[in-house]
């Protein structure tokens, strides 16, 4: 049976994803922290990107680095672990952005022989999350579409002020 995935923007800077996984926190935690396991599920085949390399050092202050290939170029995502509490909590930073640090907190909650996962993303600012949403909703489209969105955002912003 398939478990539901939910996503909610809980505040101007926060996005929360939840899902129950069939397996105890011990194994789910392992799948999140061991590079050779993480790389097997982080980029499903349906994604337009491929994971070229994956390194993790899951201890406080340890670094992680993922390198993706996308349309002939590579993109690196990296950061460091702020908190590593086996089988229950994992906190890391995303340091590749230039608009500040994004912090991801994953909690693993035991529910019988299953695990309730909560992935909480804290963006550095409202603008950073708005920007991610705006660029995500126009990706793969001509620049003009981005401009359309900007126009609508600015129109909405000025409407909000008056």
């Amino acid at each position, binding site marked *: 049976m398939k*478990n539901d*995935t*939910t*996503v*909610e*923007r809980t505040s101007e800077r926060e*996005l929360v*994803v939840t*899902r129950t*996984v*069939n*397996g105890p926190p011990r*194994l*789910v935690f*392992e*799948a999140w922290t061991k590079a050779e*396991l993480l790389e*097997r*599920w*982080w*980029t*499903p085949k*349906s*994604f*337009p*990107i491929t994971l070229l390399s994956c390194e993790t050092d899951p201890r406080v202050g340890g670094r992680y680095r993922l390198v*993706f290939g*996308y349309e002939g170029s590579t*993109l690196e*995502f990296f950061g460091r672990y702020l908190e590593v509490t086996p089988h229950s909590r994992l906190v890391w930073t*995303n340091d*590749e*952005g*230039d608009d500040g640090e*994004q912090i991801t907190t994953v909690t693993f909650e035991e529910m019988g022989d299953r695990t309730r*996962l909560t*992935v909480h993303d804290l963006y550095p600012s409202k603008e*950073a999350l708005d*920007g*991610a*949403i*705006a*660029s*995500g*909703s*126009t*990706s*793969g489209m001509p620049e*003009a*579409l981005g401009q*359309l*969105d900007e*126009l*609508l*955002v600015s*129109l*909405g912003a*000025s*409407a909000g002020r*008056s």
Partner: protein
Amino acid sequence: MRARIRESILNWMVQYLNGRLDASFAALSDATRRGVLEQLGGGDASITDLAQAFHMTLTGMRKHVGVLEQAELVTTEKVGRVRTCRLGPRRLEAETAWIEQYRQHWDSRFDELDKVVEELERKENVR
């Protein structure tokens, strides 16, 4: 910027938005209609206000507002004899659509995680 690129490449499922964007573009291809949006950005206005501001007939302005309404860039509401126009829900929809893309993205990822965890469990049980 890279964080944004990442979000872009991870959220490519935008095709279903295209139909709506085509309508948006058609609506925005006209200078008067762009002007109307700008004006509404400053506050709600009636068709009569807009017709006056753009030196047009009421019928002409109704047509323009109709195109904007179809593209969901503008909504109108008739109270008594006055039809008031305001900016439409298009922006909120973009966020809702993005969240749904993001959800599907994580859903596929978790499906793969399920497989990895199942395999770990099987291996454990064999030992």
